[in-house]
């Protein structure tokens, strides 16, 4: 059942980023580049998604400690640690995002296009993830 839910949700996510145009770096950069002909689409995507996800957290709150229907448990309160790792990581991510116009989810979906630049981006992204895993293996902070 968990497999079916994950498959369905991956499919819904993919449809969402394809329909909204967020799988196209040119469209994402149309928002991030304030110097060019500006495109507010990304902002509307975020606003639409946030409005719905706020309701999802309401449902989680209403469960009042009862577990989810399909196993596991609801996440506890979010961490409040603000450190260099969080801020530095977000800055590095912003740098890469602003340069290429891909964030992780849409980049994975766009692999199916087989475009060289997309494959290069995703290969490097996976290497970056593996690098952090390798370096922080002894670090039990996660």
């Amino acid at each position, binding site marked *: 059942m*968990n497999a079916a*839910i*994950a*498959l369905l*949700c*991956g*499919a*819904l*996510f993919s*449809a*969402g980023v*394809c329909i*909204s145009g*967020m799988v*196209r*770096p040119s469209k994402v950069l*149309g928002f*991030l580049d304030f*110097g060019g*002909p*500006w495109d*507010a689409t990304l902002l*509307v995507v975020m606003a*639409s*998604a946030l409005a*719905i*996800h706020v309701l*999802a*957290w309401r449902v989680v709150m209403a469960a009042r400690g009862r577990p*989810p229907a*399909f196993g596991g448990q609801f996440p506890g309160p*979010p961490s409040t640690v*603000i450190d260099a790792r*969080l*801020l530095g990581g*977000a*800055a*590095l*991510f*912003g*740098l*890469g*995002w602003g*340069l*290429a116009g*891909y*964030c*992780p*989810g849409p980049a994975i*979906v*766009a692999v*199916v296009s087989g*475009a060289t630049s997309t494959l290069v*981006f995703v290969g*490097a992204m*996976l*290497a*970056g*993830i593996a690098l952090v895993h390798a370096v922080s293996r002894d670090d039990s902070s*996660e």
Partner: protein
Amino acid sequence: MHDFTPVHALVGGALIALALAVMLIATGRIAGLSGVVAGLLAAGDRAWRAWFVAGMLGVGAVFELAAPRTFDAVARVPLPLVALAGLLVGVGTRLANGCTSGHGLCGISRLSKRSILATCVFFGVGVATATITGMVLR
């Protein structure tokens, strides 16, 4: 405004949120995409993540077959910079423990201070980077 597609944005945004909302409500998981992908490269609970990515690629393939213009064929910057950008996105999202979906969507919608701050930082740096790159390219 250039290339603005608000209806597609509303529908797409709603589908993105619905996907993560069903994961959260049905299984208790915050399925931020950098976490899903990174989890596939680490020991542990890989199965659901693999199914999630399979769903992404399956629907992506349908769009590629039915509407290939859904995707960009070329990048804005030369390939070595694309590779650098990929590396930065991989390292950065792992260090910050989230990306546009994990911090930007799941975190902000429950008013997590970490997520709000992280999102302000990556949007700020993203806008600065893309704007400066645009000035250099134009």
